């Protein structure tokens, strides 16, 4: 698996820190788990492409914004403090749909 940051590709390993706008790309035998500072959790399955488009979290008020796009593959989500505080603050996009997240756990597959 690797990361795409500002158009450049770099290898990712356990403990790599992500930034907003990074894209995570997994191969046929790759998976990735991601923890966020608001305690949101994501995992990306094999053959997947996920971009973290926007991420902001105010640790005092719990207000924030969390936008990701899954362009290929599978994604598992457990939402965190951002979605708990503001029902419209977390969105997951696929090429055809927008998912509004009102809390807790769900799965997404796109493509095929």
């Amino acid at each position: 698996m690797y990361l795409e940051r500002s158009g450049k590709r770099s290898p990712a390993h356990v403990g790599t820190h992500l930034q907003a706008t990074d894209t995570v790309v997994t191969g046929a035998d790759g998976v990735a788990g991601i923890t966020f500072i608001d305690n949101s959790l994501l995992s990306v399955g094999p053959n997947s492409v996920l971009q973290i488009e926007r991420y902001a979290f105010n640790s005092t008020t719990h207000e924030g914004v969390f936008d990701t796009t899954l362009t290929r593959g599978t994604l598992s989500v457990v939402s965190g403090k951002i979605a708990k505080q503001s029902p419209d603050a977390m969105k997951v996009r696929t090429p055809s749909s927008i998912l509004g997240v009102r809390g807790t756990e769900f799965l997404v597959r796109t493509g095929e």
Partner: protein
Amino acid sequence: MHARYLGPLAALLVLCGCATSRDLVVLLPGKDGKVGKVIVDNPKGETVLDTAYAAARTTDNNVRRDKASQNEVQSIFGETLEAMPPRPISFTLYFESGTDEFTEASKRELKGVLAEMARRPAPEITVIGHTDQAGTDQMNDALSLQRARRVKSILVGMGISPGRILTAGRGRREPLVRTADGVSEPRNRRVEISVR
């Protein structure tokens, strides 16, 4: 001349159209037993998922809402679910009144933090200070952050890398015990350590 190529080209576009945008969204029951809600918004309509294993299936022509079986979830998402990071765990520390010293129970909690970090592949922690309902928001925001920073320095002293520790001051927004405004309550004067 051009007309001859129009047929095959048009067919190819239609084929590509069929192969894209086939989504499956499945709502899972939460670990705490609660089921949340996901709203799937698509040019073909809006689908609300709000029961365990409710599924939205999108093709180019429609969106169908039904239920996914646990077998289907396992066969499509099994590897993905296995890659989920461990759930965050919180520890709560209290101070002996009027001192910088943790209570005995809190010292045991600190050992729990270290053990939990050792169990995780890439552990990080947030130290979150909380106050009671006495004083203004502004005062309590500052005080709660100050408490969190003090605990961070203790954790660093125990050998945890400062790069793995964030601090947050939640002020009086999240009391453990509900009280009236202005009430001094020791159980609300606490620091929470969230390990993820």
